[in-house]
């Protein structure tokens, strides 16, 4: 079933999701070209995590279709799971286990027995000295790096990062940005990241969609979105993604 070559790494059409009274998603369409970094931008409660949960087969939409890495996520969720890596908004490392144990378990869950990948990731994420300490002793930045390493264990074709840098100090954030750029450039990984830091989307993403109240309210490259606004309201002030955001969502990003 898995096609190794696909142009669209993610194709979602008409995603709808309701939780009781809350309409979390109200017809979301997304298309992400293979090998690009896509930024899903929106305030708290906009529906970013809900979208990620559906795209990563953790939950199912009430309506709509999802195709990830060339595989139908609703028909063949296991096929999608093999191809994707997920770093959820919450920490996902087992705090009672060490970094090494977390990575070994993750490798085994993908059927990988080779431990060299574990060592490689420990080194790449600067965790080798702490590798045999329980994760609950780690700093926030180390814990986040472990989460990302866990998501990368099987070298996924498509990587989902749900608010990867929220709560990190500026230095840790810069490190993670550099790593995300490296993954996109050197490993040609398709990356979908959600964020409510405009700066982050501006720097990392080649395509952006702004989501608000379960709908995509704007999309394009960061420059396109800024140019659009500049054309509408010409002024000498430089336009930032924040201005674009305020126009479309009508409220501040960090709620």
């Amino acid at each position, binding site marked *: 079933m898995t096609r190794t070559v696909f142009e669209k790494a993610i194709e979602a059409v008409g995603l709808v999701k309701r939780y009781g009274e809350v309409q979390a998603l109200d017809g979301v369409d997304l298309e992400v070209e293979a090998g690009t970094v896509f930024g899903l931008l929106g305030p708290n409660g906009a529906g970013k995590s809900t979208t990620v949960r559906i795209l990563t087969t*953790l939950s199912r939409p009430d309506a709509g279709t999802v195709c990830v890495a060339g595989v139908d996520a609703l028909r063949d969720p296991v096929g999608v799971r093999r191809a994707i890596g997920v770093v959820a908004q919450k920490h996902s490392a*087992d705090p009672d286990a060490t970094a090494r*144990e977390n990575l070994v378990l*993750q490798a085994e869950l993908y059927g990988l027995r080779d431990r060299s990948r574990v060592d490689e990731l420990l080194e790449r994420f600067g965790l080798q000295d702490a590798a045999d300490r329980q994760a609950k002793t780690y700093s926030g930045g180390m814990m986040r790096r472990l989460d990302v390493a*866990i998501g990368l264990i099987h070298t996924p074709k498509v990587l989902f990062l749900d608010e990867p840098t929220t709560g990190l100090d500026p230095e840790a954030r810069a490190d993670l940005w550099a790593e995300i750029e490296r993954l996109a450039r050197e490993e040609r990984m398709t990356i979908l990241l959600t964020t409510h830091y405009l700066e982050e989307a501006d720097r990392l993403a080649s395509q952006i969609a702004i989501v608000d109240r379960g709908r995509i309210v704007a999309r394009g490259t960061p420059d396109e979105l800024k140019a659009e606004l500049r054309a509408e309201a010409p002024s000498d002030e430089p336009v930032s993604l924040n201005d674009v955001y305020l126009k479309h969502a009508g409220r501040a990003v960090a709620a």
Partner: protein
Amino acid sequence: MTAVRQSWQVSLRYFRVLLRQPAFLLITIVQPLIWLLLFGALFKAVTQIPGFGGNGSYLDYLTPGIVVMLAVSSAGWTGMGFIEDINSGVMDRLLVTPAWRGAFNVGSVAQCVVSVVLQTLLIIGLALLMGAEIAHAGVLLLVAALLAAAFASLSNGLGVLTRQRESLIGAVSLLLLPLTFLSSALMQLSLAPGWIETVAKFNPVDWAAVAARDPDLLRIGLLAALTVLSGWFATRAFAIYQRSL
């Protein structure tokens, strides 16, 4: 084979937790001994009731009863781990891997079963030292393992479905005593009211207690079937949990 290997890798996670908490390990070892000594002292008189019909010592009768009681009570709490995993985010990470869902349950159940088997060995050892005769030690180990596996899966499934510590604590406290006392674990049912004898026929704890003293294939088979059924339930629970996300 992948399923076995994945289950084993998952179980390592739980064994480590056990080994890294010396206090917990100590409780696992001391608890069965306390139970045997305490219940032994308390129920010594029971076997002297006319009609009890035990021809051996009170310990011969009581030892299997204490083992099955311990098995259900240890197993009942297994689901706490999944509740913690759901709240911490670890569960969602496991569920987006292509791993077989059953491995998450089997891995956790395996830890419970191994603990219960070790506890059973301790009880048997102490009972023998105290002069008891355990006629069917192998069968006792088997039914303890099956009972523990069945209830550990049940607890896991409940944990995943309710996701709340309070719900699981409630369920375990509600069920544990009736399951024990509506069985022949501590008391011969011929001495109990008739309705209890009837209810006990449907009680897995009683199946285990009876089969451990006087092995019969029907009850062991029922326990095995229950183990499979609750394993299926726990595995299905993940899909139901995902549907609520």
